[in-house]
């Protein structure tokens, strides 16, 4: 029992670890503004460079204990995100902003480094493994122009580069994205490609199931035959000849015989059970159940 409990505990702990790591892998550096002169201000009213992290996943992720750095191995340029702050829990598809002002004593979201020194920024997990990193040219950064991930309007693929406008705490695409369905329609206006592809997938799924159960069915039949042979060989010779099935007896006939036997037995039971027993039931008197003292008695006029 203890062993089993320990095993379950180990599995739960390791699963928890995996899930936690998996959660941090959903975090990416979404947008960075290196040279902030007139745009987004921090909670102290200052214009400083900032980093936007985005949770790409569909579950909340706590980034407490993870790291942000602009130079790996340099403790003075590596910021450990405090653990006991509820605000470090990023909602699914949510954002969080860190201000890179080299004044980490101002609160959880102020880092101990600035962004215009190294041209490198990384987000690392608790074990200091890099989860996401970016490289940028510090000299090429324009004032109040952020860099981040956005969809290429022609190819539809995501690219990292200067954005058309700053978008802290929101998606980087300012223009309306074309719906996936309409993109698909542009490539397949008649719907023929969809029909062929989808029918092939439906068939593949059911063919896979068919093949699996054809194989399983055959092996089950083989196994049951083997079992049957084994059982028959273990029987005495006299019994063997007695249990031989009638040739030509099919399932429906067996079912009909079974139903007939059952009905016959039920009928027998009905006839046999014509026994009526009448017993006198004696109940001891109690004033609590006496009709005389019942509250339903109507008052009599005398």
């Amino acid at each position: 029992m203890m062993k089993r409990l320990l095993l379950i505990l180990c599995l739960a702990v390791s699963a928890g670890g995996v899930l936690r790591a998996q959660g941090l892998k959903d975090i990416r550096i979404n947008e960075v503004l290196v040279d902030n002169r007139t745009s987004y201000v921090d909670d102290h009213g200052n214009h400083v460079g900032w980093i936007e992290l985005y949770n790409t996943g569909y579950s909340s992720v706590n980034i407490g204990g993870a790291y942000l750095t602009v130079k790996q191995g340099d403790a003075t340029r590596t910021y450990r995100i405090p653990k006991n702050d509820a605000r470090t829990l990023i909602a699914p598809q949510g954002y969080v902003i860190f201000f890179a002002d080299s004044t980490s004593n101002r609160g959880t979201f102020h880092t101990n480094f600035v962004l215009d020194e190294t041209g490198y920024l990384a987000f690392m997990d608790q074990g200091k493994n890099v989860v996401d990193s970016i490289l940028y040219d510090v000299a090429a950064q324009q004032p109040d122009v952020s860099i981040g991930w956005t969809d290429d309007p022609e190819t539809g693929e995501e690219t990292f580069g200067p954005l058309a406008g700053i978008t802290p705490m929101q998606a980087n695409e300012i223009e309306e994205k074309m719906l996936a369905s309409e993109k698909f329609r542009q490539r397949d206006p008649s719907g023929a490609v969809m029909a062929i592809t989808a029918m092939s997938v439906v068939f593949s799924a059911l063919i896979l199931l068919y093949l699996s159960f054809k194989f399983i069915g055959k092996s089950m039949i083989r196994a049951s035959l083997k079992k049957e042979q084994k059982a028959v060989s273990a029987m005495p010779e006299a019994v063997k000849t007695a249990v031989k099935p009638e040739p030509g007896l099919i399932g429906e006939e067996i079912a009909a015989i079974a139903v007939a036997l059952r009905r016959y037995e039920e009928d027998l039971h009905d006839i046999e059970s014509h026994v009526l027993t009448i017993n006198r039931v004696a109940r001891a008197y109690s004033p609590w159940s006496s009709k005389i003292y019942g509250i339903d008695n109507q008052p009599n006029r005398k």
Partner: protein
Amino acid sequence: MENHSFFEFIGANLQQFLSYTGFANVTPGHLIMICFGLAFIYLAIAKKYEPMLLLPIGFGILVGNIPFVPGLQIGVYEDGSVMNYLYFGVLKGVYPPLIFLGIGAMTDFSALISNPKLMLIGAAAQLGIFGAYIAALALGFTAAEAGAIGIIGGADGPTAIFLSSKLAPDLMGAIAIAAYSYMALVPVIQPPIMKLLTTKKERVIRMKPPRQVSQREKVLFPIIGMLLTCFLVPSGLPLLGMLFFGNLLKESGVTKRLANTASGPLIDIVTILIGLTVGASTQATTFLTWKSLGIFGLGAASFVVATFGGVLFVKFFNLFLKEGNKINPLIGNAGVSAVPDSARVSQEVGIKYDKTNYLLMHAMGPNVAGVIGSAVAAGILLGFLGS
């Protein structure tokens, strides 16, 4: 003077009250929809066409088409109303997977396991979905709308609601009503097509009785089925995952209480909620449009194409099967899911030509394969056209 103002006050109040009543706000659209609702209730009670679905939907149509002044938090589309809270389960696709859980817990896949080649018929009958998709695109519907309309051909109400809530929520009411109506009309739509496509000789083909399936196979089926289909089409997970989970509850033999709940009280509650709210979502203003008319036309066409697909596939498949192993093409129609109505149609048509040829159990194979096939198809459409 005082009396005069008193009566004026009462008169103004009465006038205000009357302006809030349904009589003051009724439009011809409301009356038409109420007639639809009454027709559904009539079909459910008098004709016994899918009463479990048509009755709640029919009454829901009445509920949804009571005229009222907006802003009182009454209507299904008004934030904060009770109906809106219940409708949330439809809008976010919560109810259909729960119904699939119940269907899984009710369904016996033995016919399919004993003769797995019948699964392919369930795939062929999904042709109706994609035929309707192509036709809807040609009629000018957007790709997402066409996908949602196409799924009517899957002849599976919860799947249709699930997909339309994701791809085209505005059309969901019309799509759900079309799907359920045609499912109820399966005994009318399918037999002429089945007779048209088959010869007398084919209609009397006798199939081998299904072999007995062991419990181990029944337990393996939902596990392997879920893994294979969901690895291939992960977007079908909400439906397929729940369908196979429900079936595992039933077949495992150790969770009888859970299986009973899923296949009994749970599915009953969800059916009531889904039927009533889908019916209520068909408010005249959103339902009585040319688009709805198009959806009904395309829905009928998709059922026809699906039946063609299933029956013709069996005839084609028979070319490769040995004598004695051939499949009666009258079970091809059952691939459109609509469990168990389409399987019953196979039985009824088959028995007209051979009084001792019972096709029901054979038809249940493609019938339940159709449920899997339509859920896979919905997953594919969602994967390509979603977001």
